[in-house]
């Protein structure tokens, strides 16, 4: 953990805990309360957070991962000052929040009124808040809809506006709750750009996310919550590994020994995607030639291994399937401990969206004798300026020719 020159973290938490009391039967009315004054209301106590301690240095990008209901959002709300909690939390600097996919809008008002109101809530003066409005609308790309009431916005537009508001306050600390799960591919790409920019500007960011790819790409440190407690605090790679274990019941021992469902004679260490210049990218534009690479290590001596890739889209349809077997049936002999990279290059005609490649390593033969299967560890985005709606966008030439119509022929005759 790195600290600022004066040694103080931007956000710190000591033994933070939070319980919710859930009444077993909810007494909603004064009448019931008055008629049965002595009836005891029984409560169930739900422990949402338990003894959570961590610190985020100024300028640090801090990730919080965890399954649904693990207390991530509750923690964020405690930091944001929306819930009162046990323990202590310190925040140094102005806070901006993006929580539950919004920043608190009044649906009956137009974007302008909401943006100004929000600015004042964040502590800006009304004049500063009004000045900020243009940059918010610019970023959200909602110029055409600036006078529309928010209740007529689509949910995607709302999220865009909210995120834009949250990042344009010029805050020192940003609390962002799961922004990547919504919006289209172009928006996700925009979020990534913003994350890069904020990181470069030295802002402190606390990001709650399920996207382990993003976690590893952006965060300096990360924390994994499970049932309200800190399971792991440290490097994002470690957190991502633990998250996948918890989520998919994958035991690290098993992975070491047998791989993800295979016999473990080889292991996929890493998967990534590159553009033509060989740059690793979280998102690739449509139309370029891209290369998907899998870094593999052999645990025993293997003859003629094969690797296959299935690229799944968000609907879990395998859009691209390729195997090394087709071109390299006799791929050669490899020794124990040897490492190779399998590369799959293709013209990226994929429709914009998120894709998850699954890499399967198999022994010689039918391909069913699996050594390792790598799934859910990596995903990438495809961006495009135009989404036509197909699974792939093939270069399509369209021509229009006039042909003599029936009527003309009849008139001519």
């Amino acid at each position, binding site marked *: *953990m790195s600290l600022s020159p004066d*040694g*103080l*973290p931007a956000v*710190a938490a*000591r033994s933070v805990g939070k319980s*919710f009391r859930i009444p077993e039967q909810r*007494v*909603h*009315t*004064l*009448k019931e*309360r008055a008629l049965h004054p002595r009836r005891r209301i029984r409560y169930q106590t739900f422990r949402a957070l338990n003894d959570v*301690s*961590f*610190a985020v240095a100024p300028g640090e990008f801090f990730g919080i991962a965890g399954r649904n209901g693990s207390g991530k959002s509750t923690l964020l*709300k*405690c*930091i*944001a*000052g*929306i*819930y*009162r*909690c046990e323990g*202590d*939390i*310190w*925040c*140094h600097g102005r*806070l901006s*929040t993006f*929580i*539950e996919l*919004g*920043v*608190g*809008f*009044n649906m*009956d*008002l137009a974007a302008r*009124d909401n943006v*100004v*109101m*929000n600015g*004042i*809530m*964040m*502590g800006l*003066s*009304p004049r500063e808040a009004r000045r900020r409005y243009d940059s918010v609308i610019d970023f959200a790309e909602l110029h055409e809809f600036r006078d529309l009431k928010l209740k007529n916005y689509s949910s995607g537009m709302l999220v865009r506006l909210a995120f834009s508001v949250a990042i344009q306050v010029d805050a020192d600390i940003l609390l962002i709750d799961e922004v990547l799960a919504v919006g289209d591919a172009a928006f996700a790409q925009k979020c990534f750009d913003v994350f890069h920019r904020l990181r470069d500007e030295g802002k402190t960011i606390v990001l709650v996310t399920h996207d382990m790819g993003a976690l590893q790409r952006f965060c300096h440190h990360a924390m994994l919550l499970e049932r309200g407690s*800190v399971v792991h*605090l*440290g490097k994002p790679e470690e957190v991502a590994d633990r998250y996948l274990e918890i989520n998919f019941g994958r035991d690290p021992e098993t992975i070491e020994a047998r791989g993800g469902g295979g016999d473990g004679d080889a292991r996929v260490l890493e998967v990534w995607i590159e553009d033509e210049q060989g740059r690793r990218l979280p998102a690739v534009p449509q139309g370029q030639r891209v290369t998907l690479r899998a870094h593999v290590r052999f645990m025993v001596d293997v003859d003629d291994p094969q690797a296959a890739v299935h690229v799944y889209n968000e609907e879990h349809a395998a859009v691209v399937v390729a195997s090394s077997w087709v071109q390299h049936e006799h791929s050669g002999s490899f020794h124990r401990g040897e490492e190779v990279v399998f590369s799959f290059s293709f013209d990226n005609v994929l429709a914009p969206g998120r894709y998850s490649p699954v890499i399967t390593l198999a022994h010689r033969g039918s391909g069913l004798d699996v050594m390792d299967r790598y799934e859910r560890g990596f995903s990438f985005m495809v961006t495009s300026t135009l989404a036509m709606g197909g699974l792939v966008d093939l270069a399509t030439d369209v021509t229009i020719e006039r042909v003599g119509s029936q009527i003309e022929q009849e008139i001519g005759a």
Partner: protein
Amino acid sequence: MSVAESIPYESLGRPIRGPEALTRDWRRFWHLTLNIARTEWKLRFFGSVLGYFWQLMRPLLLFGVLYTFFTVIGHVGRGAAAAPGRPNHLYGVQLLGSIVLFTFFAEATGAAVSSVVQNEPLVRKIQFPRMVIPLSVVLGALFNLGLNLVVVLIFALASGVRPMLSWLELPLIIALLTVFATGLAMLLSSLYVYFRDVAPIWEVISQILFYASPVIVPLLSVQRALSPSLVKVYMLNPLATTFQQFRHAVINHATPGATQVLGYGGVIAGVGIVAALFAIGFTVFNRTAPYVAENL
């Protein structure tokens, strides 16, 4: 966890306090209250075709109905005397003035009841001083009161009321009424989070208060019907105190004012009641404010 031990907690200063009713940043508090009140106001009046005139029509229509019914048909106004033996030709203006004051009170408290719950999206997503919500409701009602009082003023001048030095009491009267309404607004808005039948209950109480205050029935008629000690109890209702003083100080000196009925001690007791209610409302709101977000 080892990381936790390495954090210099002692040098971090004061931890954040979580959600609160108030804030130390009064500028932000004021901007926020004003801005919420203004947007709510804009929403109400620019959302409908007739806009502001609707808001004006409500007290005026009520006035028209009551005036017609009680003076032309029921002869209350004609019989209503400012003092024994002297008919009160300013009954109409007094009726309108009381209706306008009551409209302010009913609007401020009635809209405040559900205000915190209705602002759920804000409360659940942003940290801001919660007290802003009921206060902005009262402030919005105050805007309306100001505009309606202009109408009362025109009506009064047209009826022959001449400017008086005692008009200087008007800000005091409105201030007392506002403190009363604010106390109730804080109390009701925080109770409504826990008990949803507060809304209909308050509607009924509000109606009762309308008839238990000198709006339609002049004080003299009340004095004729009740014993002097009961009249004092009637006058201790803060609405009765303020309305009656308004009728006396702003419109017609011949009508007895609050001090004449209650005595100075009584008026101080009345102010004490308002202060106590405000304190209760404030305390309840202040206690519940940190937990509102999780109880919505």
